[in-house]
């Protein structure tokens, strides 16, 4: 495509300057307080909070600095470039589809193309081991995150119902719920009601009224292709511009290839990155890796030194282990009348009636249902993935407007062998590509079977004829999980690595379990909490220094 964007080629952004070269860096020659790798949901929020607190912050992002007005189009095919498209090798019994399903590339990261569904985790999500005897407890509980859930929802004006029926938070949300909802959301709610299942309008990081110079949603429907009117929150349009105003420097199109350590290996000193084929370094007192579930382990493993021979922060051997997607099966049913899946915000109604463990179902944990709109490429590729093609696909797609869809967001239990490791194959930087291995467990499969059957019941109760089940996954979590015990986790509850005190990992990587809901709000709440922790340490003059972490994180693990 012709590139008409005057911003896209700029790679160095700070207050008063947008440059297409790295020769006039703001913080190029100095050791900054914090260097953040990855400008996604977590990294951008951290940059904003830490910059506001007066720290010198550099964010380094591998992809471009998007300009929504000139880079985003109302088109599924061309907007696939918002995902992290770099080839990952996949294996296992259920190899994961990478890219658009779970990761973003460019400033704003995955928030640029996420659906905007904004859930808190429930209290039970943080103590799965205690309650269900599987997986592991988090070193934090719901109440540790509660103030940060509140804070984030208010910062970005989440819209949602006055009364939310599940979990510890019952509403109201800062902005009113969306009105009207789409036909697909309507039939979902009707089906639920007929069966006595509670449903609600979705809590969304999408505006229902003007805020901060941004308009409410116009139901264009292309949340996953980048929001053009800026009605949907993304880190690109919210935290990043504010961070820049607070003095943060953002480098885009810069790929971090190595985390640097001092000669003893006791601390990190900064990162090495590549721009336009040239190597650069950024020195920092603290390095935070917010580059997601695949690239964080890959970077840590690729940064091995003689004193950290199995990779940085990896004395536990658990870097890259226990990764979890959500099972994301799509259930389609055909209706007598038009539904028109393409219209409006994709997810406008949800149910968490099946979220908590119910032993009578024969499996532990649970799931969320999202009434989930679709445009033609997504539906056709889903059906193709389910083995439908040729005449049948063509005939089914002729009835595109008559289908409704429910998508499962199912909890997947952590298994050590589901992992990110290094492959033999090298990428264009000469670094080993990630190998992502995944297989569902027995519990996961039982949960999926339950969700598929239940969704079909709902669709049927609404007057639809269940037609197709498309196996899919969404999101990705874990790989550098948090915990109190350095032998069984990679970071502590503040996302500080057990092995190297001035190295932090802050993203969905630190999740201990996956929960059964869209994860972005929890990623951001964790990032907000980590920001407070770093600001406290700075105020005490202990930023990046090695000392005992105060409080609960040093408590002995007792079980």
């Amino acid at each position: 495509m012709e590139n008409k964007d005057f911003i896209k080629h700029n790679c160095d952004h700070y207050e008063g300057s947008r440059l297409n070269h790295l020769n006039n860096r703001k913080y190029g020659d100095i050791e900054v307080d914090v260097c953040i790798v990855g400008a996604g949901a977590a990294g951008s929020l951290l940059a904003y909070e830490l910059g506001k607190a007066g720290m010198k912050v550099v964010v380094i992002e591998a992809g471009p600095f998007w300009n929504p007005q000139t880079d985003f189009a109302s088109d599924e095919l061309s907007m696939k470039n918002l995902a992290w498209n770099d080839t990952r090798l996949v294996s296992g019994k259920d190899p994961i589809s990478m890219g658009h399903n779970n990761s973003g590339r460019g400033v704003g990261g995955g928030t640029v193309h996420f659906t905007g569904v904004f859930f808190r985790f429930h209290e039970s999500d943080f103590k799965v081991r205690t309650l269900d005897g599987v997986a592991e407890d988090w070193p934090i509980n719901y109440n540790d995150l509660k103030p940060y859930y509140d804070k984030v929802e208010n910062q970005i004006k989440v819209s949602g119902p006055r009364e939310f029926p599940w979990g510890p938070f019952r509403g109201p949300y800062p902005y009113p719920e969306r009105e009207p909802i789409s036909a697909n959301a309507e039939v979902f709610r009707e089906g639920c009601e007929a069966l006595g299942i509670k449903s609600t309008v979705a809590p969304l990081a999408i505006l229902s009224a003007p805020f901060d110079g941004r308009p409410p949603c116009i139901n264009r429907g292309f949340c996953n292709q980048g929001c053009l009117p800026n009605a949907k929150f993304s880190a690109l349009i919210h935290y990043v511009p504010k961070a820049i105003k607070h003095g943060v420097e953002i480098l885009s199109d810069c790929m971090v290839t190595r985390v640097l350590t001092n000669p003893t290996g006791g601390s990190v000193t900064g990162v090495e990155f590549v721009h336009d084929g040239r190597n650069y370094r950024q020195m920092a007192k603290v390095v935070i890796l917010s580059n997601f579930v695949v690239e964080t382990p890959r970077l840590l493993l690729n940064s091995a030194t003689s004193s950290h021979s199995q990779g940085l922060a990896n004395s536990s051997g658990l870097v890259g282990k226990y990764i979890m997607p959500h099972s994301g099966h799509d259930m389609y049913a055909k209706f007598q009348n038009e539904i028109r899946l393409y219209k409006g915000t994709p997810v406008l109604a949800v149910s968490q009636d099946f979220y908590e463990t119910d032993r009578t179902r024969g499996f532990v944990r649970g799931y969320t249902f999202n009434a989930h709109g679709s445009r033609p490429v997504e539906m056709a590729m889903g059906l193709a993935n389910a083995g439908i093609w040729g005449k049948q696909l063509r005939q089914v797609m002729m009835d595109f407007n008559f289908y409704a869809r429910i998508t499962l967001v199912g909890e997947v239990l952590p298994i050590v062998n589901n992992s990110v490791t290094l492959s033999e194959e090298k990428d264009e930087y000469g670094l080993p590509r990630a190998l992502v291995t995944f297989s569902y467990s027995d519990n996961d499969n039982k949960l999926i079977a339950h969700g598929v059957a239940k969704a079909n019941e709902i669709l049927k109760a609404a007057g639809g004829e269940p037609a197709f089940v498309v196996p899919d996954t969404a999101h990705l979590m874990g790989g550098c999980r948090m915990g109190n015990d350095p032998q069984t986790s990679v970071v502590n509850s503040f996302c500080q690595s057990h092995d190297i005190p001035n190295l932090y990992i802050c993203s969905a990587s630190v999740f201990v379990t996956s929960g059964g809901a869209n994860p972005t709000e929890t990623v951001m709440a964790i990032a907000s909490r980590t920001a407070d922790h770093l600001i406290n340490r700075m105020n005490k003059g202990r930023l990046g220094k090695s000392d005992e972490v105060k409080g609960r994180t040093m408590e002995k693990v007792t079980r």
Partner: protein
Amino acid sequence: MSWDESVITHYPNYNILNLADEWDSYTKEIVLKRLGPFSAPEYFSEWETSTLKAIVKNIVFDNRDNIIDWIVFHLDSKMTSEIGENQRKIGIPPEDVLVREGISVIDRIARSKFAKSFTDLEEDEQFKIISSLQLGQLPPIREWSRIPQKDLFSKFLLEIVAAYYSHPEVWSEIGYGGPAYPRGYVRTEYGLTDPWEARGDGK
């Protein structure tokens, strides 16, 4: 061919291209380019291109040349693009190799089974080969150890389907409202349509 007669649109009077002036200019530019004309393939040879076209027709059950040409153009650009392929199963060759060798091996199967090139086969013979490929049931030959049948089929299928359902003529047929910026959708509830959206027959 009789392909078009067994698939019937609900929206014979709808043409999404009549709405193109309502779209933002970047979207309009991207979508209208799919109407052609297309430059000659850079990656695929002439012979590969004609074999690929026949494969595409089977996958999408459509033989309109303008749409098939767009799909082949899209595939050709993808083969030479530096953008990654998101994921690749371990042991499977990179997609440009997979597709090129796949085309060649499909033709070889046609020649050994029917003593004709794939492009010279009857429709039902072509279909037999492609549907056997999906099931991994083509005759056992050495190449399949490097180019597993099901992975080859899946690569063809997903790329071709993504391009097919990105063509505005197909959007018109299925009654897709399509790009809606800056105006958005106003009437989104059950049973409602904006005045410019596709209307079914007899409504």
